[in-house]
């Protein structure tokens, strides 16, 4: 099975972000970057499929500046066979534009399965995979937490709010990966060495003009510092009073 995984380079979220003087970018000083969470699950799921079938190829694709090469190498050190960088230096927020460039690369790739994260962890649109599916005219299933094959039929599970559904479609198909499918492995030393020799091709990204513009970034309003109203069960009456009279939620 030939599998493509589209992955995005994103900053580690476990920090206090600062906004760059431009007002439209995050200050990247001191930030650590890695594969976006759901894309990491997708890479792992793709590798497990290849290992199980003992055949096929896993190709990782990322759109961005040369910094994404490091992200692609990481995926190859996990086990992906080769990588494609769609080079584009400026940041893009328009998922439609990104999807169009990815679709142009994917369209003649002969992939049986094209995988995305359910959403990128930074811009969090949750849109790119499904747009690519439409643009390629392929069946698409979003936010799957399980994936199995019965011949050329993919059988999947999607989590809904308080429910789930079982879904099927024929390959080739586009899927976006939710948590739960697989925990990404850590690259082994051997994998890291091997990744240095794996092919990484760089091509210019073909982006249409974006029609979704980023005006500004802002930090959310600080919540008024919380109040510790007391210790133990003795504080319950005061809590109930505040919920009733101040917050008016009881």
């Amino acid at each position, binding site marked *: 099975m030939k599998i493509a995984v589209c992955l995005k380079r994103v900053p580690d979220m476990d920090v206090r972000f600062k906004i760059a003087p431009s007002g439209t970018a995050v200050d990247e000083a001191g930030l650590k970057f890695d594969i976006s969470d759901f894309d990491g699950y997708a890479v792992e799921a793709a590798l497990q499929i290849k290992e199980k079938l003992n055949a096929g190829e896993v190709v990782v694709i990322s759109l961005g500046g040369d910094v994404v090469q490091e992200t692609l190498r990481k995926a190859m050190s996990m086990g992906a066979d080769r990588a494609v960088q769609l080079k584009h230096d400026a940041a893009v927020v328009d998922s439609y534009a990104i999807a169009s460039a990815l679709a142009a690369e994917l369209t003649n790739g002969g992939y049986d399965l094209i995988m995305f994260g359910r959403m990128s962890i930074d811009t969090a649109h949750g849109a790119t995979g499904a747009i690519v599916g439409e643009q390629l005219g392929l069946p698409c299933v979003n936010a799957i937490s399980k994936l199995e094959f019965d011949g050329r039929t993919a059988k999947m599970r999607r989590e809904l709010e308080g429910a789930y559904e079982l879904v099927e479609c024929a390959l080739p198909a586009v899927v976006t990966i939710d948590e739960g499918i697989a925990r990404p492995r850590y690259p082994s030393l051997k994998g890291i060495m091997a990744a240095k020799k794996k092919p990484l091709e760089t091509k210019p990204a073909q982006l249409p003009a974006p029609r979704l513009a980023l005006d500004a970034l802002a930090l959310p309003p600080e919540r008024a510092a919380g109040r510790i109203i007391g210790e133990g069960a003795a504080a319950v009456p005061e*809590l109930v009073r505040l919920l009733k009279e101040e917050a008016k939620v009881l």
Partner: protein
Amino acid sequence: MTTNVLAFAETRGGDLRRAALEAVTAARAIADARGGQVHAVLFGAPGIGAHAAALGAHGADAVLVVEHAAFAQNNPEAVSATLAARMGAGYGAFVCAASATGKDLAPRVAAKLQVPLASDVTALTVKGDAITVTHPGYTGKILQTMTLTASPAVVSVRPGAYLPVANAKAGAVETLAPAGDPAASRVKVTETAAGNAAKLDLGEAPVIISGGRGLKEAANFSLVEALAAAFGNAAVGATRAVTDDGWRPHADQIGQTGRLVSPDLYVACGISGAIQHLAGMRTSKCIVAINKDKDAPIFKAADYGIVGDVLEILPVLTDAVKQAKAAG
């Protein structure tokens, strides 16, 4: 400029979801700014049209009913094709809720219309032809303000951001034919398993009582359930630590990789307040934390905190809430 707005009226298992009314409310905001109408589209098995009145009562000028046996289950290919075809009748915007179903549909509709979309927005303002939205990114740590310049605009709104409001409009019912054959979709839902049908959904509950590892063991979730029952309008949520350990189903997980919720009241019981958890609930209107560690990060996100043993405090709180409810 096309002033009318098409809203997706989400249903599940034949029931109208709150997401449907939220989509109509957000669509109303756009239509009112432009002097246009809101048309709600209702998909389902024959009989689903019975929900048209509720949509009219919450702001729909017209309700387009698309009935077909193949709409008894989610059918994203046929639904998005029908929505995109209907958009051709002349709409300035398409709005749905950013629920699991809405997030699945919006990009498909946008791609068919060849326009970008704004996902999971918490606020929107109309400026002539353009729509400016606020969208929380970076696990809720950064608010992105973005402007959609393409027309029509495709927007999904975060559950809880546009609460349903009574707003009686004509709600004139019209039948709409599906685009293509809904039974021929390539993506087939073979089974939908409801969680507990009697349970209030996390996305719709005004109050959420959530438990973390501080509850010590799965059986102690009965204390969380009891507090939820005392409120009467509450659902039970959990942290990933708890769903990973199988104490609660994955569907109950709140956070970056679980549900994003914004209830009026969120009670965090024995939850440390990891950023991945906060990402899913920090927009709640009022947050209460109960934790034995006074330095737990959850207290920074909370409006009110009690330091102490959650196993001891929960039964007392449950009784007090029952009394407060009984007193009216």
